[in-house]
């Protein structure tokens, strides 16, 4: 048997174990030294992409959400794709980018965290989890250099500081803690604009869910890649909350109600505006 101080023996990292024993299972697309050919690049750019994901802090923790659409070029490839994943009992990850490697990375990250917890008998600290994710994003750098960006947002409840935390990443694996809110993916900019207007410190859980969904609906209106709430098929954004009680899924019924309320309010506002313009028009004539 080996000594655990021997660097050749895997420690408590599942990612390292995979790299040493089953590198064929790593979520990477093999890229030759010369890079991708234009045809390969085109093909990958047209493979399914996940679009908008966001996170925001509230009084008791942090919220993370994503729409459900994946696009292939100008086509919808899936209306029910999942972009937000439970990582462990206190944290969650959402990923935007090429769907295949994104889903693989989320799955690998989940195994990574539980693997460590089982081997060591204690879970990683929230900072430790965020750092581990940064190393995994960095391992994807060759793909990112070809424009195949896989960027996650990570949220968790930090028992030590007693609050939620949000981490965003860049393609080089750079890890940045976000103080209030963040969104990324094709509709990320639109979602950020909405959150910038609506975000307040110390929101309640209900307020945070409403702001997050409002931002996703705005992203769906402005960005062709992002899917809005789909009342016909019954497909709604995914929302998870990381708080002291652990990571929770917000039930679909609740998300549906909040989306309905936002849309009803907007419909009323539209009607009000058109009625007003009618009277104005009447006034002129």
């Amino acid at each position, binding site marked *: *048997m080996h000594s655990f101080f021997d660097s050749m023996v*895997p420690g408590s990292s*599942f990612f390292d*174990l*995979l790299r040493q*024993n*089953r590198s064929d*299972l790593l979520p990477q697309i093999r890229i030759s030294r010369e890079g991708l050919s234009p045809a390969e690049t085109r093909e990958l750019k047209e493979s399914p992409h996940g679009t908008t994901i966001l996170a925001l802090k509230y009084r008791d923790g942090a919220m993370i959400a994503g729409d459900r659409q994946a696009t292939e070029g100008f086509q919808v490839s899936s209306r029910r794709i999942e972009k937000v994943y439970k990582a462990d009992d206190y944290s969650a990850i959402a990923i935007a980018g090429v769907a295949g490697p994104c889903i693989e990375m989320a*799955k*690998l990250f989940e*195994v990574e965290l*539980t*693997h460590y917890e*089982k*081997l060591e*008998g204690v879970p990683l600290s929230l900072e430790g989890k965020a750092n581990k994710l940064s190393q995994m994003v960095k391992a994807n750098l060759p793909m990112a250099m070809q424009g195949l960006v896989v960027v996650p947002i990570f949220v968790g409840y930090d028992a030590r500081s007693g609050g939620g935390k949000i981490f965003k990443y860049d393609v080089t694996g750079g890890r940045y803690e976000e103080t209030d809110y963040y969104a990324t993916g094709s509709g990320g900019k639109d979602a950020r604009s909405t959150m910038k207007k609506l975000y307040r410190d110390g929101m309640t859980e209900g307020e945070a869910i409403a702001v997050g969904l409002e931002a996703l609906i705005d992203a769906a209106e402005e960005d062709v890649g992002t899917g809005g709430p789909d009342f016909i098929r019954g497909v709604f954004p995914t929302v998870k909350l990381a708080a002291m009680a652990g990571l929770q899924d917000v039930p679909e019924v609740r998300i549906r109600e909040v989306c309905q309320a936002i849309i009803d309010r907007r419909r009323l506002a539209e009607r009000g505006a058109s009625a007003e313009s009618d009277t104005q028009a009447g006034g002129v004539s």
Partner: protein
Amino acid sequence: MALPYYVSPEQMMHDKAEYARKGIARGKSIIVLEYAGGMLLVAENPSASLNKISEIYDRIAFAGAGRYSEFENLRKAGIRYADLKGFAYDREDVTAKSLANAYSQTIGNIFSEAMKPLEVEILVVEVADGALPNELYRITFDGSIGDERGFAAIGGQAEELRLHLKDSYEPGLDQQAALRLAIQALEAVGSVKVKPQSLEVAVLERSRTGRKFRRLSQDDLSAICTNTE
């Protein structure tokens, strides 16, 4: 030049078995009981941090008796094996049976090939989904494997515990009753009162979603113990 001495294979195996048995007999015991809602694992363990019972995978737990450093290595190897398999195929493809077989192979090879056999006895336990039966495998120092029903015991006083449980175990106990029975068995065999502080207890609860393994805290244990007195 010294003459190479000759030892018959029978003698060598006999000596190794004797050595391993002695090593294990010095250690404390572990009991696993099937109860209505899952599987209960109870170890006599004065240490609060060096565990004898551990989670391996979603529905699978491990218990090791004997030499700590040896079963700790087996435990870690089992987690690596299970996580790799689950990642390559699917989570439901990781089974206690394949894990127990892998353990049996490894321990058996060490017993026949290495100078020193492992001084361990281990249990691999799986709580079943729905109406299927639970699985409970006992693997001894020479790699022999057996599947047990209802209850199992390993470690220093395994034989006495098994005899005690054979008389008093009945299927369909609730969690508290199962824990009470395990403590009774340990007290009867050790003829001393067992304190909650010297116990390590975990359960595989069928009703939990996802990972079924849960350690009972000292508070849980004291509460159950005082309730039953």
